[in-house]
């Protein structure tokens, strides 16, 4: 049966090759077009989130100079900022964007298994984004409950946007989940069922592994968010009491009774923690390929890398309550969750080591993508290690709810995966457009973003250690333990943030400028082994592979194979004689 299916695909390119502009670029079922659509929307809304963060930084750095935003605005901005960055930018960009682009190309498929559903996925995602934006114009503005949306606060007066704002946010999230599910099912099924012949799972590039695992996590984690969103909507609109105990809101008795606020926190974090790995795992995968390609060396310990990804994926479902050590849940849970949380550091550590050992004894070309990849390793180590402070329950107690947490997750999520996003864009832009991005601009962009982002978030740890709480609109001087120097530090942080944000313009300019003026790249500018670089035409046409699907004969990392003529051997190059023995790798087919 399986062969029938694949054989079908061989003819497919002759079948529906769309003609009209609309069918080709707008209402398109081509995974490559959908990928670009996803990326474009995600990055545009990401820019909005960056702008919001700048408003926040202005307030925090110069509270009295510009009174641009009142407390409400501030809380609405951090909420939108956080939610957009985590879900509508990074999740959508890594899975909808890179997932769509890379999975079929790297697995040697003609497209996703269900292209029409894939297309719907994007349009539904767009709808979710529009509903989210509608919140900005809703009466009362968007919700200001923080991206964690903890009830009862998120649905009671006293929090900005407690009516329309939060309703639209929840509806938007629900829609997003529908969109993601349609996409995610496609990604997972494509990886499992539609690889070209010879592409065994253990030959797949790690990018695919990362995105695949993240999609699985998404399919299993988003349900928790979906359910809690429904229940909170009912609490808010219908007046049920799922999350609402008896409450006196601003002096008025309410009709709520008997609900459990902690239930929401458990549901949210059962989604929330896997979510952070949904953002991290694709980055892990992609960066592995960037490192291997630009170090001209096979990824070190491929098997371990795969198992580490899977281990992290599984473990991420049993650590959620490390966000709730001091939430009032039974403190005895602390022992269990602290242990599981720190265990996650082991597989992650393996990945970090293997990345570095991939560079070791390699032939390191410091191209722009490579710079970003190495920048990622550095910032991720930093951010990951601070995670161990927070995971270790006792150490978390003083740090929880302070800027230490903010610093942790920006370093590990706001900086490192974002660096990978950039590196990946510099790496695959040639395949998508047929032109290179400008290296000089790229390097400038890297240095400012990398150093700048580190300068923004490193000092925040120390504010946190001192006890400076997060989600504070301002720090009245009447707080004795916060010295005046903290205010100065905040100014420096804000300045650094402005600079880094400005540097993103270089990137955006580069992207548009190179569309016309970039140097033609040819099919395989990085001399990479993976299938997407072996397509008959660049950019690949609808159906990707022309007449014949590729046939894979080796794993994805045959760089500098002893005895090979070139310093890289494409996965689909025919097997050659005198293959050195070794498990799956080497030239053995």
């Amino acid at each position, binding site marked *: 049966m399986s062969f029938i299916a694949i054989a079908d695909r061989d003819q497919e390119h002759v079948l529906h090759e769309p003609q009209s502009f609309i069918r080709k670029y707008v209402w398109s079922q081509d995974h490559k077009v959908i990928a670009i659509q996803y990326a474009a929307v995600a990055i545009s809304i990401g820019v909005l989130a960056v702008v919001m963060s700048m408003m926040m930084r202005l307030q925090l750095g110069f509270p009295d100079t510009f009174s641009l935003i009142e407390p409400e605005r501030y809380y609405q901005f951090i909420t939108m900022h956080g939610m957009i960055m985590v879900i509508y930018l990074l999740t959508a960009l890594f899975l909808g964007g890179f997932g769509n682009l890379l999975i079929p190309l790297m697995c040697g498929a003609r497209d996703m298994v269900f292209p029409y559903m894939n297309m719907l996925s994007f349009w539904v995602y767009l709808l979710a984004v529009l509903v989210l934006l509608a919140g900005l114009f809703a009466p009362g503005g968007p919700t200001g409950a923080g991206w964690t949306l903890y009830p009862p606060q998120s649905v009671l007066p006293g929090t900005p946007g407690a009516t329309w704002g939060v309703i639209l946010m929840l509806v938007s999230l629900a829609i997003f989940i529908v969109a993601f599910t349609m996409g995610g099912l496609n990604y997972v099924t494509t990886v499992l069922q539609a690889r070209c012949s010879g592409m065994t799972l253990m030959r797949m590039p790690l990018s695919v592994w990362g995105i695949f695992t993240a999609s699985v996590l998404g399919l299993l984690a988003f349900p928790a968010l979906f359910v809690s969103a429904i229940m909170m909507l009912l609490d808010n609109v219908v007046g049920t009491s799922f999350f609402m105990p008896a409450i006196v809101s*601003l002096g008025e008795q309410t009709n709520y009774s008997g609900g459990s606020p902690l239930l929401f926190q458990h549901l949210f974090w059962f989604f929330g923690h896997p979510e952070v790995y949904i953002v991290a795992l694709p980055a892990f995968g992609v960066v592995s390929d960037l490192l291997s390609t630009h170090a001209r060396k096979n990824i070190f310990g491929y098997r371990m890398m795969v198992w580490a990804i899977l281990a992290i994926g599984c473990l991420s479902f049993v650590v959620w309550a490390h966000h709730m050590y001091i939430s009032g849940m039974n403190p005895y849970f602390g022992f269990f969750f602290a242990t599981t949380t720190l265990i996650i550091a082991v597989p992650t550590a393996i990945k970090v080591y293997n990345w570095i050992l991939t560079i070791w004894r390699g032939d390191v070309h410091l191209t722009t993508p490579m710079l970003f990849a190495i920048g990622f390793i550095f910032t991720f180590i930093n951010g990951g290690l601070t995670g*161990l*402070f927070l995971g*270790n329950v006792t150490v978390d107690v003083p740090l929880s709810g302070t800027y230490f947490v903010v610093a942790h997750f920006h370093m590990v999520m706001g900086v490192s995966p974002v660096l990978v996003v950039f590196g990946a864009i510099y790496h695959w832009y040639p395949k998508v457009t047929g032109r290179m991005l400008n290296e000089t601009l790229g390097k400038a962009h890297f240095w400012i973003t990398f150093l700048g982002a580190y300068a923004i978030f490193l000092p925040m740890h120390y504010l946190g250690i001192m006890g400076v709480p997060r989600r504070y609109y301002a720090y009245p001087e009447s707080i004795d333990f916060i010295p005046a120097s903290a205010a100065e530090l905040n100014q420096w942080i804000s300045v650094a943030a402005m600079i880094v944000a400005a540097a993103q313009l270089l990137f955006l300019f580069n992207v548009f400028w190179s569309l016309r003026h970039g140097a033609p790249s040819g099919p395989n500018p990085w001399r990479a082994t993976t299938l997407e670089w072996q397509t008959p035409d660049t950019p690949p046409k609808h159906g990707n592979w022309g007449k014949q699907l590729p046939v894979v004969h080796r794993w994805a990392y045959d760089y500098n194979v002893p005895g090979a003529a070139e310093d890289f051997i494409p996965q689909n190059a025919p097997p050659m004689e005198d293959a050195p023995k070794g498990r799956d790798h080497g030239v053995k087919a």
Partner: protein
Amino acid sequence: MVLAGALVLLVIGTVLFHFLSPWWLTPIASNWDTIDETMHVTFWVTGVVFVSVNLFLAYAIVRYRHRKGLKAHYEPENRKLEWGLTIATSVGIAAMLAPGLAVWARFVTVPEDASLVEVLGQQWSWSYRFPGADGRLGKSDTRLISVDNPFGMSPDDPVGEDDVLVSSPELHLPVGKPVKFELRSKDVNHQFAVPQFRMKMDLVPGMVTYFWLTPTRTGEFDALCEQLCGTAHFAMRGRVVVQEEDEFKTWLAGQPTYGAARAEIAGDPAAGRTSFAPCTNCHGAQAEGDRELNAPKLSGQAAWYLARQLNDFRNGVRGAHQDDVYGKQMIPFASMLADQANIRNVVAYIATLPDERPESTVFGDPARGRRIYETTCSTCHGGSAQGVWSTHAPRLANMSDWYMQRQLENFRAGIRGSHRQDYYGAQMSSIARTLADERAAADVLDYIHTLGQ
């Protein structure tokens, strides 16, 4: 090459920053120094990893940067090395986890001799309850909470009679005695956090959470809310005063018990009328206020607010700032009121006076004022500026706008609300500062005037 250098510099810079930065743990004031030790262990382990791993990374980049004829080594995997690193890491992890769990085990077991104090949170202030001599807290229920029963005490539980109710955000504790905090919230999640204590916990409506600690040094410590709880989250402040046992006892004795509070007879307007006589000179016979004499309208203002202000004047909490000229004028008159009974009478009398609408004297752009009022002020003062007891926010509608204008200025300039005991004033001044300028204030006041009728 440059990159490697940059990495090395970043590592060095990070380490230097770590040791030189003036921002570090606040001097500890509780028995939880073990938490600090665990943190230091973690710093050492992770620090070593951070430095060594990154320096190795930098070295690898330099050593194997692309040069003519350089060929990468072909080595798919190396089981020995990989497992070795895995085990080493696991050891490092265990070294951090073990002490952590040991300390946590002490956290979950509250010592028997720990005394009890209840922290009650609400948007956006704290109040506290001590068990009386019996050492037990009386029953309480959110459903019973009202302006006359802010703690939601259940009247028919004898145990509650001797409970000590502390309605101010200032909590006193004896030094060197273990205390178990029981945390209760009226409305949303909050978190009672004192950085110097290290230990902290969320307040969750519908349940009672707890933590324990032993204050180890006397002093005054800020209590912050570290769980986002709405617009004024950042202004939800309290203070913990750790003092010697006997000082603490005297303070505690000064606080009302639930029984006593209930025994208080309501204010008597008739008696209040006589005590109010001197006030009429400035505030007018009907307490309608007199701009010439800078005396605001009092009629129609909420009793709990008037009472609190009178007390603040008497205790030098209000009118303390040397620039608060008119505030100072009020102090002697407030001091004429002998005791709380007196105050209750006057307030009760004022409540009987007609609530005429004052004519407006401050003019701005009410439309703009509305936007500001509805985003910011209404959260505490209520949608129609009627005043909200639970946020301690007085009524603004139908009150003297010229007076409110001056108070706004005082709040912005820190002339009012800067006294350490004036917790709610401090809240107002941090909010007043969000007003761009005098014009914004005028706009708001003009809008507020339209709310009264």
